[in-house]
């Protein structure tokens, strides 16, 4: 069983998770929206899988960055789901996915502005108080900023400082953003509140033009992202669970296993005497 590296639970590989022939992730991640309030076949399977692995949650619909009020029905259901499966990490995206009372089912960038920070801090505190656990917010990939008046890292750090939330550092997102917005990903990592990182994501992406990468989660992780990951975890003052994300173009199990083992080996290299903390 891995010590640090986990993987997103996929229905395509449900039996593999149960039989543990190849995969030995240290945890599994799911989007709570896809598993809350369901029954039947997949509920049975999920219960069995959750008995074998710790579960982390990576939400899609909280929309922490929009003007809309929090959806308390959703949060109540989420809290009960967290309790039912003894979830230790609930992460979400530092983005918005709902606007003017309409869900968009995708992650849109928030304007990097001081007033947006205040609003997000207030909502984050409400979520944390209600769930009685820290919210872990992900540094998202984005293809254009919207009406920015501050730097991205200032925006993120201000939210982390003022809300006392935790950070989900998606190393691939930082690489993608560095490429798309022409900044140095290593410098960006150095500017973040690394002591607040509680969770790490790694994924592949697709370059669609000379100056644009789309964060598809549909390709293998490339070496420069592994290099950035290797660098990043050496800067962290503590360990954190690391997730391999793959949502499209799902490869053979052996390829997934190769990537998962590679991540685990990098963690072991730097953290071999540590235990995982989140």
């Amino acid at each position, binding site marked *: 069983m891995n010590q640090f590296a986990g993987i997103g639970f996929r229905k395509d590989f449900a039996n593999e998770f149960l039989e543990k022939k190849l995969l030995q992730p240290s945890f599994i991640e799911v989007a709570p929206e896809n598993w809350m309030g369901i*029954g039947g076949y*997949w509920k049975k399977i999920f219960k069995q899988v959750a008995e074998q692995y710790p579960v982390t949650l990576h939400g899609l619909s909280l929309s922490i960055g929009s003007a809309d009020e929090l*959806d308390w029905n959703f949060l109540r259901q989420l809290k009960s789901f967290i309790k039912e499966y003894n979830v230790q990490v609930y992460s979400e995206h530092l983005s918005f996915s709902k606007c003017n009372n309409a869900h968009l*089912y995708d992650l849109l960038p928030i304007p990097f502005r001081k007033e947006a920070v205040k609003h997000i801090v207030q909502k984050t505190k409400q979520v944390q108080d209600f769930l009685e656990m820290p919210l872990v917010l992900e540094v998202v990939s984005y293809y254009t900023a919207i009406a920015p008046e501050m730097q991205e890292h200032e925006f993120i750090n201000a939210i982390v400082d003022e809300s006392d939330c935790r950070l989900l550092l998606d190393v691939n997102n930082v690489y993608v953003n560095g490429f798309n917005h022409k900044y140095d990903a290593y410098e960006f990592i150095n500017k973040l509140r690394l002591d607040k990182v509680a969770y790490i994501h790694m994924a592949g992406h697709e370059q669609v033009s000379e100056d644009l990468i789309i964060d598809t989660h549909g390709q293998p992780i490339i070496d420069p992202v592994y290099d950035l990951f290797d660098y990043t975890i050496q800067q962290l003052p503590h360990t954190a669970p690391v997730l391999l994300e793959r949502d499209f173009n799902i490869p053979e199990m052996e390829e997934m296993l190769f990537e998962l083992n590679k991540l685990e080996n990098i963690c072991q290299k730097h953290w071999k005497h540590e235990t995982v903390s989140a």
Partner: protein
Amino acid sequence: MKQSALDIAFDQEKKFADYCRTGNFVRLKGTTPNRLPHYRKLVFNVIDDTLQTAYPLTFGLLTKSEWKELVNDFFGTHNCQSYQVWKMPYELYEYVLNNDLPIKEKYPQLLNLLLFEWMEIEVFMMEDIEAASLKTSGELITDELILNPEHFLLATEYPVHYKKANEITEADKGIYYILIFREPQTGKVIFIELSVLFAWLTEQIKTTGRSVYQLSKEASEVFNIPRQQILENSQSFLNELYNQQFILGFK
């Protein structure tokens, strides 16, 4: 009136979201040229893919341009309420139900088809419902029956459950009853077409808790069929429902 700084941030978000929903040109502050269309494409693809997956028969029935127009209008004008993307397709059914759309005239079977396709998802995914306590042995005709609670009884005007959607015509118009339930062990969704008599009996068993024998007298009067004939026909019908685990046992 001067906008507050927070209003500016949210105004930009709203314009951005509206653009992603409609594709209508928008001017936003501080964006990188030519990047906004990627968001419209990504957002629309999620909606389109989810709806195509939920409604493969409807997708096959409509022309490409009709489908695109439907999805575009739905997403552009309807505020999707479900935070679970797998439930969003039901909102398309409601949207078609509640709006005057030319495709409803062209395809009178459309609403039935959408609901039929949605019910398969709903029954497959719905939360578990515990059945009432039961005995495993008893008499199907004379005992009170415990039904599988994870079911719907659907009435349609068109035979969307057995005929290809593009071959259905006005001549097929009638009343069709479809029992849709979830097999307890496998979670598989089963569809059974019921006659009007058996649809009535199923509904009565469920709501009154009376045995088929008790119900047969009233059924005979309602449908003008000899009681003995109803009892004889019911035996094989009930056997099938028992074998398929729609009837789970006896009170």
